């Protein structure tokens, strides 16, 4: 038996008939083709599948697609606007906050929620705010730096864009 689910994802409305047990992350990946949201575990520890649901960071493997009925979702694909990276994306690039990149979308989405809640977090607050996400490549050192840099950039007047030696392509 299938259920109708209608959502707004990255500003676009979608309607599908889905099995009630379909996980939201599989709905995003397999039904909508939004493969930027990743799956790194099956017990909701890793946070690779983090998205925003009505503005709040949620591990999309912990929700059924049908629970997203009527909600507005933002995935990593919805962060860059008009060909410009979101400041958090830019900061992850500038600070070498990623290596294999698999956990990165989840971290960026979790960081987006963190900075929305607390635009000027301390290092401890960043570490606390992102404790639901795992990374195996970076040792988190540059992820912390990236979030600090993003906070500065998003903070307005006093913010200085990060020095970029040569961005290349």
């Amino acid at each position: 038996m299938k259920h109708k689910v209608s959502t707004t994802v990255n500003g676009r409305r979608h309607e599908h008939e889905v099995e009630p047990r379909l996980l939201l992350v599989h709905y995003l990946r397999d039904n909508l083709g939004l493969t930027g949201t990743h799956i790194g575990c099956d017990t909701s520890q890793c946070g690779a599948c983090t998205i925003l649901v009505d503005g709040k960071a949620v591990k999309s493997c912990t929700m059924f697609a049908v629970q997203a009925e009527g909600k507005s979702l933002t995935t990593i694909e919805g962060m860059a606007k008009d060909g410009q990276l979101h400041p958090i994306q830019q900061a992850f690039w500038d600070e070498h906050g990623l290596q294999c990149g698999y956990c990165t979308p989840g971290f960026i989405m979790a960081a987006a929620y963190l900075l929305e809640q607390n635009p000027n977090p301390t290092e401890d607050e960043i570490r606390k705010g992102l404790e639901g996400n795992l990374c195996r490549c970076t040792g988190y050192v540059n992820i912390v730096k990236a979030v600090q840099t993003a906070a500065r950039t998003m903070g307005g007047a006093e913010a200085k864009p990060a020095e970029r030696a040569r961005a290349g392509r």
Partner: protein
Amino acid sequence: MIGAKIHRREDPKLVTGHGTYVDDIQQTGMVYMSVVRSAQAHAKIKSIDITEASKSPGVVAIYAARDFKGVINGGLPVTESLIADKKYVPNQFPIAETEVVYFGEPVAVVLADERYQASDAAEKVQVDYDPLPVVVDFEKAMQKGSQKSHSDGPDNIAWDVEFPGGDIEAAFKEADVVVKERIIQQRVFPLSMEPRTVIANFVPFTNQLTMWSSTQVPHFVRIFMCFGLGVPESQIRVIAPDVGGGFGSKLRPYPEEYLAAAASKLSGRPVKWVEGRTENLQATTHGRGHIFDIEVAAKKDGTLLGLKVTNLSDNGAYVGVFGALQSALALLLAPGCYKWKAVHGRTVGILTNKMSTDPYRGAGRPEAAHLVERAVDLAAHELKMDPADVRLKNFPAENEFPFTNALGMVYDSGAYAKTLEKAKSLVGYDELRKRQAELRKKGRYMGIGWSTYVEICGVGPSAATAHVSGNLSLVESSVVRVHPTGSVTVAVGTHSHGQGHETTFAQIVADTLGVPYEVVEVHHGDTGDTPFGYGTYGSRSLAVGGVSIYKSCQKVVDKAKKIAAHALEAAEEDVVFDQGRFHVKGSPDKAKTMGEIAFAAHLPGLPEGMEAGLEAVTYFDPPNFTWPFGAHVCVTEVDPETGAVEIQKYVAVDDCGNVINPMIVDGQVHGGVAQGIGQALFEEVQYAEDTGQLKTGTLLDYSIPGIGEIPSMDLDRTVTPSPTNDLGVKGVGEAGTIAASAAVINSIVDALSPFGIKHVDMPASPDRLWKQIQEARK
């Protein structure tokens, strides 16, 4: 460009969700494969009943070993030739037929139209087992008369090899002190964030196989698909697109690659298999899994004399593809960066009813560094000397390089005292020791731990690797092609999965050819458009692959110079190549750029007898390994009431030779150190002793370090170029992991030394330390 902090060109797609990992790829008509895995660690398979499963919605086919028998030839590439002095090395068919030998071994596969349907049906496959005795404890398993991990095997001994180096008995005779210790390297999960994933598309009648696999070694996988499926290598294309980390766990062909390919051949459909995390913990190779019994002999003045090491290696049920190599590396590097008079090693490979152990970041070198750095600290403690002083006393001096260690390995270059002194001043060593003494008076236990490691990179020169790698010569390849309009494509046999090769390799090409960085495109990971290469592991991609690129570029420059001389109407020896421009000596104004030469290379009017085009191929076989080194210091405080460890400072001074991109090098050190800390403090794979079931079967039961558990780090470098390659590079992918566990454990032991504690096992969890402190207080 070489040496510059260039931001990675890989990143924009990855930060925007536009990366392409294998599970992001779909094929028309694709079915999902779910693997039915053994719920027993050791048992006879009595029957497999697929009646109910076959009726499950969406099921396309269900296959067991008998169905694959005619399709898959032979077994996985753990051939006898891979192990010198082998004893019993069981052949591994990708799926169990009559006997399962580890928990999680494949016993059947289900193909279904949809992801969830495949899992549903897999749960309905009924396997009836007849349990056999389970072998879990590998020390017991090596005893005569032990239960056997394979019922038809002679015993559980895969190999038993000695590594003699010098007169060990004489060295021990001279000793004022002898210290013994057992160093346990617990099993750990490599745990790349992306589990393994495969899509196999075998096209019927044309006999062509395309495989997408989350692997570090696409060419290696292709070779074994060729052998396994009897399809010519030329008809197989293996693509490793974006890969979400590997750490050594993706550098071998796996059962599921064979099964997906064969299932595609049998069903005529493209087959996708996505490993869940729980499955990943059961079925992707584990790291470490060793016991090292060591004996250290030293003189009163701190001179290190002799080191005896007996290594017991827990292979699991099947010897890992590089299983024996890890033990060999652990022993060959056991002397570390010290001038021992003699070192004696012995390694015994042991079969148990568990998942295979195979490389995990460092693969043998973290084991070596951990044991020798512990050995030096044990000796220092016994002699009541400062561990830094004992190290300094026993390093070879800079002018003693190339330095031959006690087991005959030739270290290319080193300045060990320099990294130690730099780390000392960065951490404020003398002050810290004073502070430590003050804190102890107040009942606080702060420790300072050293790890002055040397490691082996650039795996590997054929002369050294052939006898331990089944006669492989681990060369690496590149094709550098300058297009008519001056842009450049570089195709390589290595594979980047986080290391940033697309950026660093382009930096090398831009500098060497003198072309803009932006016009250099690096291709890797697709056997369809890259030359054969052994892939990425063993910190080899730059020191072997990168040097191959440099050599190809040099060949291109040589040809371009001939064309330039012809165009400038000068003798070739009078033409100078400087920053991408060719000119006649003394007339720099009248120059031809590499772009102009590239265009000319594709037009008529070339020097007589010269072929058109501007490209070159290199297969580089290095003359020696490279030997990075460094000094790490970890400062911890242990709370004696809870056993909790706080890392207060972590200083790493590494020397990986010349650096192409310092930002990427730092990132590699950060991540490596984090994994070393993970092993030192948190991680341990546990199997139930009685049943062989995996107790740490999900991320709920096994913790890798989170963002709150890894400290910020103070990094620095010295630069001692390798004399054995053109770029003077050494490698850095594993250094952090190799150094870190010893630094952390030495620090904890140092902190707890007032309790009389001399050694601490990993993981140094609060409960373990608390118990040890309670015991010591009695």
